[in-house]
């Protein structure tokens, strides 16, 4: 039979305390109290046990000794020995009684044979009357050869006292320990709360929009959490920055061509005097709108690449044919611009990647190089291996970039001063950066004085190096 789910749930015993800090403190306290209790109990049990055993051993040794005296010196010797012992017993805790077979008392300090002592096989512990006070005693009875009865015992009143004092001390100690444990638990809870609280305060501040806050690093174990949270915040901050920057850029870079198109159309509609003028205004507006579309497409593509989900088309790729195809495509454009496009391919391993995206990224780099290189110079595309990475560099002898510009080059819509007046959207390198990042690679810009070198590093697949001759 199936039991309804909610019943199963309600029957499960549940710990009522939800607060992690309190649970932590409770666990700490109970472990402390429990271990202290065990420890003290052991001390008590061991100490009292020792005392008991010492009494028993003393009694047995004494009795054994007396029995030997009886054997050697007879009854009189025994009586003398007992008397002797009683006289020399400074602590006044020894108890003896020697009776004859008829029950006559020969020696000892006990008033008479206690009725409770009936056997000789074990110790008896009982209350007795000594002189004027009652006390407790532990004793053992022996039957001597000849029928005499001997009782050897010890007054254990003092030991009982010690036991009580010890018991009291231990109980008090345990109470103290418990109080300490409770205090410690509260302190632990406080520390716990403080740690959690500092994380919570920072994250709450971040949640409210203050992205500049970071977790303080204190040098303890919580640093690993703090560090992770800080890295997370760093990334969120960067992403937010990206979004802000992109929305600003969109506002500017898309509004401008839209505004231009709108102005052209409006002006033409009001002032155009001939069909020819109207047509040319419309044509130019269409060009502006096409520009808007291409920006949109590039932005969407970059966003999609940065989301990192576009790996469906990844295959194992040979780099040389890909570069040769592109070089062949761009060689004509380079020649048109009076440039020489040179391709150098060293032995490279295959990479795992998306052919079309890599083609697009490299096409962007070649477009840029051809756009900026002064006529008569070389544009070089060079591929090879660095460690485990395949590098593909595109180098030109153009105006290059300042270090500040390089740092910002992959930002969306960023355009270096030198590029400000050439056609383009400022998205080319952002796309390259996104493509490379999707391939777990990196893009490095370097100033070649003169000229710019853009190098893409892409992790290679392990395997044989493909020997490829240099092609110029």
């Amino acid at each position: 039979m199936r039991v309804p789910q909610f019943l199963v749930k309600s029957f499960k015993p549940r710990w009522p305390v939800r607060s992690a800090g309190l649970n932590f403190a409770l666990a700490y306290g109970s472990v402390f109290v429990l271990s202290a209790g065990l420890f003290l109990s052991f001390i008590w049990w061991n100490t009292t046990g020792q005392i008991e055993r010492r009494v028993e051993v003393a009694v047995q040794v004494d009795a054994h000794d007396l029995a030997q005296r009886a054997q050697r010196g007879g009854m009189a010797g025994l009586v003398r020995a007992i008397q002797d012992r009683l006289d020399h017993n400074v602590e006044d805790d020894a108890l003896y009684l020697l009776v004859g077979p008829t029950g006559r008392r020969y020696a000892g300090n006990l008033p008479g044979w206690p009725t409770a002592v009936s056997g000789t096989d074990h110790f008896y512990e009982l209350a007795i009357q000594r002189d004027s006070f009652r006390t407790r005693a532990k004793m053992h009875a022996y039957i001597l050869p000849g029928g005499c009865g001997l009782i050897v015992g010890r007054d254990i009143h003092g030991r009982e006292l010690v036991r009580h004092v010890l018991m009291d001390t231990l109980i008090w100690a345990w109470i103290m320990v418990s109080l300490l444990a409770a205090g410690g638990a509260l302190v632990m809870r406080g520390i716990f709360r403080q740690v959690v609280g500092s994380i919570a305060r920072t994250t709450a501040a971040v949640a409210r929009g203050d992205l500049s806050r970071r977790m303080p690093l204190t040098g303890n174990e919580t640093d690993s959490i703090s560090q992770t949270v800080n890295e997370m915040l760093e990334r969120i901050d960067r992403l937010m920055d990206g979004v802000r920057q992109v929305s600003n850029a969109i506002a500017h870079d898309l509004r401008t061509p839209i505004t231009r198109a709108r102005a052209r159309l409006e002006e033409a509609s009001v002032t155009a005097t001939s069909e020819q003028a109207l047509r040319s205004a419309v044509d130019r507006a269409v060009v502006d709108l096409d520009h808007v579309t291409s920006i949109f497409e590039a932005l969407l593509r970059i966003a999609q690449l940065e989301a990192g989900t576009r790996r469906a088309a990844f295959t194992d790729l040979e780099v040389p044919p890909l570069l040769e195809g592109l070089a062949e495509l761009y060689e004509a454009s380079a020649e048109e611009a009076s440039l020489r496009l040179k391709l150098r391919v060293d032995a490279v391993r295959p990479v795992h990647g998306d052919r079309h995206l890599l083609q697009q990224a490299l096409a962007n780099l070649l477009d840029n190089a051809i756009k900026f290189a002064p006529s008569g110079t070389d544009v070089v595309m060079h591929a090879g291996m660095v460690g485990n990475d395949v590098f593909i560099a595109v180098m030109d002898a153009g105006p290059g970039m300042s270090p500040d510009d390089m740092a910002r080059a992959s930002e969306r819509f960023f355009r270096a001063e030198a590029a400000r007046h050439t056609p383009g959207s400022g998205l080319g390198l952002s796309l390259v950066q996104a493509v490379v990042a999707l391939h777990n690679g990196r893009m490095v810009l370097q100033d070649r004085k003169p000229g710019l070198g853009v190098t893409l590093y892409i992790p290679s697949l392990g395997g044989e190096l493909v020997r490829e001759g240099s092609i110029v």
Partner: protein
Amino acid sequence: MRILLVEDDVTVRAFVLKGLREAGHVVDEADNGKDGLFLAVSESYDVLILDRMLPGGIDGVRILETLRVQNNATPVLLLSALADVDDRVAGLKAGGDDYVTKPFAFSELMARVEALGRRGRSEVVPQTRLTVADLEMDLLARTVKRGGEKIDLQPREFRLLEFLVRHAGQVVTRTMLLERVWDYHFDPQTNVIDVHVSRLRQKVDKPFDHALIHTIRNAGYILRAD
């Protein structure tokens, strides 16, 4: 050609319809997937233009899949606002023959529709020789002659010329050339295709008294005999 256009946006539909009719084609229209599927199944067309996103539960890809299941091989051009490469691949996998993303220039759409219509008719017999006016291409020997004079072409130039000749009399756009001749699917910033066409012209047209390859403004190129 007889063309079916299935597109739900009124402005885009009117724009495409007018352009196709002006070019001399007979065009039927539908504004939803259900009517579109009905027309596509019951009538015979040379080319279908299907919007990917259509109201009424049946979208362009569903129409396409239904037709292909019924062994209807009419060339299909998909129109879509989804520019993603994956969407393009999905559309082509479903049996589409070409894919144009919105917004598009009408000249691009027109060129692609004409190319599809041509393919529907001409690819029955594999050709080994192509001829336009005094230009002859031998596809087996990979040789080109014009007016009996041999022209030396690089392999890529040969493929470019072959594509133009196969589509003689039709406008082919730069994007079409990049896709079909080079198999690249990106939008180059510079005029890479123009430069290649201009090189081809140097060899094919320059030494002769009349040109075969013409530039069509705002559209692309055309190779024709006149």
